[in-house]
């Protein structure tokens, strides 16, 4: 894919994050103000994991955040080490891919009742 398309997707991911990360951070961190019952309690984590809204939002967050973050990290690394394009692409690709696999496995496993 061309560099400008990758960059455009990075911006699209940013806009998605503004909405979905806003919801996620608000829910998890403003729990007292919003009256959310201990969001880190295992049973609450489990209940959320089996809810279709959270399943979809976690998957969207995972893809958008990993893409945006790894692309951003790649930009910074390339600026300081412009000669290492292939190595940086490989490193970013592998870390992003592994994180995506682990994250989506946890989210889907939780949804189907694990």
């Amino acid at each position: 894919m061309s560099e400008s398309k990758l960059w455009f997707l990075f911006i699209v991911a940013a806009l998605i994050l503004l909405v979905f990360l806003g919801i996620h951070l608000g829910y998890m961190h403003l729990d007292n103000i919003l009256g959310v019952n201990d969001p880190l309690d295992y049973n609450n984590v489990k209940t959320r994991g089996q809810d279709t809204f959270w399943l979809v939002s976690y998957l969207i967050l995972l893809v958008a955040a990993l893409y945006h973050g790894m692309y951003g990290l790649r930009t910074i690394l390339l600026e300081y080490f412009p000669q290492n394009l292939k190595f940086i692409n490989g490193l970013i690709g592998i870390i992003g891919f592994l994180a995506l696999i682990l994250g989506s496995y946890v989210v889907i496993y939780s949804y189907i009742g694990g």
Partner: protein
Amino acid sequence: MYDNRLGIKGNFYAGKFGIERYLYTLHRISGIGLIIYLLLHIVVTSFRLGGPDAWAKAMGTVNNPIFKFGEFLVVIAGVFHGLNGLRLILTEFGYFIGKPERQEYPYKYSTLKQRPLMYFLMILALVGIVISIYDIYLA
């Protein structure tokens, strides 16, 4: 790929550039912090696969002052990065920087035109951070 002649130093010395240049540095630092946190977050939350005991143990490990402070930094970084990023996207698409016009003395540059947006979003970020602190101490 262009040569970043100023290197790392260029991130910390704005020279004739304005406050937005320092926001750029903060945007990068907060971005690096957030991506590191995201990767850790994916690993830590995967402990839920081990059931209630493994989850309780993982949450127990991160429930100490150092991690709590780190989490607090993540919230600050997230709020700042999100709102500053919104500014970058809006100006990238040409909003809040005015239309091209013939320059007459005293010269106005686009940075000045987008500055009110910058102040507005940074005040919003501050409000978001204060609300987050309030929520933490409300517990």
